[in-house]
């Protein structure tokens, strides 16, 4: 077993998800099935192999550091569940 139910609860917090006990049970089983399968990769010798297969011969394209106005604040705010003026409203963050 790669992950326990407790591990799954912790991962859910990291993933900003909330799983019921039943879903946690199911998720634990599913994740272990998948992780057991991907163990296969340990059969491959990857000594000295670069993880960047895409980058050979390429440079990251850069954009000029210029401000471009989106120009439609109303549209950008329209989809928010709660907004006021130019702001998105969220619940208080408790410290």
């Amino acid at each position, binding site marked *: 077993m790669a992950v326990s139910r407790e591990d799954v609860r912790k991962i*859910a917090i*990291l*993933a900003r*998800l909330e799983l019921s006990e039943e879903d946690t049970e199911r998720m634990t089983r599913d994740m272990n099935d998948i992780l057991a*399968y*991907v163990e296969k*990769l340990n059969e491959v010798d990857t000594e000295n192999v670069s993880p960047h297969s895409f980058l050979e011969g390429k440079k990251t394209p850069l954009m000029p550091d210029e401000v471009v106005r989106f120009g439609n604040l109303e549209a950008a705010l329209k*989809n928010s569940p709660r907004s006021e003026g130019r702001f998105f409203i969220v619940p208080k963050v408790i410290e």
Partner: protein
Amino acid sequence: MSDLRSLSGVELAGKIAAGRVSSRETCEVFLSAIEKDDHNCLISVRRAEALAEADNVDKMRAQGASLPPYAGLPLVIKDNMVVRGEQPTSCASKILKNFKSPYDAHVVEKLKEARMIILGKTNMDEFAMGSSSENSAFGPVRGPVDPERVAGGSSGGSATAVALGLAPMALGSDTGGSIRQPAAFCGVVGLKPTYGRVSRYGLVAYGSSLDQIGPLAGTVEDAAALLGIIAGHDKRESTSADVPVPDYLGALDGEIKGLRVGLPREYFPDSLDSRVRERVMDQVACLEDLGAEIMEVSLPHTEYAIAAYYIIATAEASANLARFDGVRYGHRSSVSGELLEMYRRSRSEGFGREVKRRIMLGTYVLSAGYYDAYYLKAQKVRTLITRDFTRALEKADVLVTPTTPTVSWKLGSFEDNPVQMYLQDIFTVTVNLTGVPAVSVPAGQVDGLPVGVQIIGRHFDEAAILKTARKLEREVNR
């Protein structure tokens, strides 16, 4: 006018351009077919907007304006590409059910420049995560040949719409096979371009190093035409390739004689259904008759592709879906609580089971202590898979394989067995991992269900796979 639906996109565009049928009449025929259809291919239809755009094209034509060649031709696009306006872009998810995009995707801008008419957004697996189009918050897509079977996924709505003549062509997206596999299951043509060929700006991201938008159509010519419209550099998208777009239509009838066709032995295992093998080998025999040189090649790391893919794709998905937090757009839970609770509840209420599974897996493989063992390892194996392809595509010009190991399965078959479902992607994921282009073309049937043959090419050599596909379409009886 139902014979309009039996024409190819190119033929129909020609009729519209010649003034023999109006764009409005054309769109109405397809909209009517969409309304009557019960395969659940479309999530939303933009009837009023489409007809207004069609009217505008007709008016411009009547005034003698010079119009692009496909002006007034309708199509449908997968609901993970944003279209500005009143129709939502939902990604088949509850979390984006009412999301109205303030901007158009790059491909949508290209379609609008071409004056093509988007009739609606097609159904899909939620956030493109799936191989069956069953994981939709709006119900599964029903397969076009047997409605009790899956349409394939995640572009099942697009593939089924084309197969049923609800639109002459469609756009889909492909991260692990999501254009090619539904094309194979539905008996249509589906092409995944080279990574970087088509801009991903406005495509809701699933696996950023894997995703590509591509055409689905009834003919290779239509797929080539649509590819030509959407391909090209986009400054806004940092992975968009600054490589000129060749004339795909012009290259379609290129010479096959002397073409070196590689058959990767790992894609024809003993376990492959012998009837699927036969359908594919019929295609190969046809190419040989036309003068192609057939050879066996090897892609030795194929057996590790699914494992590498599901680590990389889920890792990237967990990062890409972190933005859905109920703050700026999408579903926010109405259950009160402080910020962290809001995030957790909104996301849990909004995402379906498969999406949650992939987010969880992705979060785990990227987490401290596991990143090296999983994500980094998978990326190294990816390099080895890429080297396999580079070597094989030095010996051969194109590779030919089955698109899928089986034909379409019954709805609900993999309900509780995600790994079994993932294994069905074995012939398609390597193409995304390596970024090469590939097309699936119909290759007959097994048990009355469509089978696809996949043609894979070198980076940016869509012309070679299209000309090969075209020959198969023309020469083999289906």
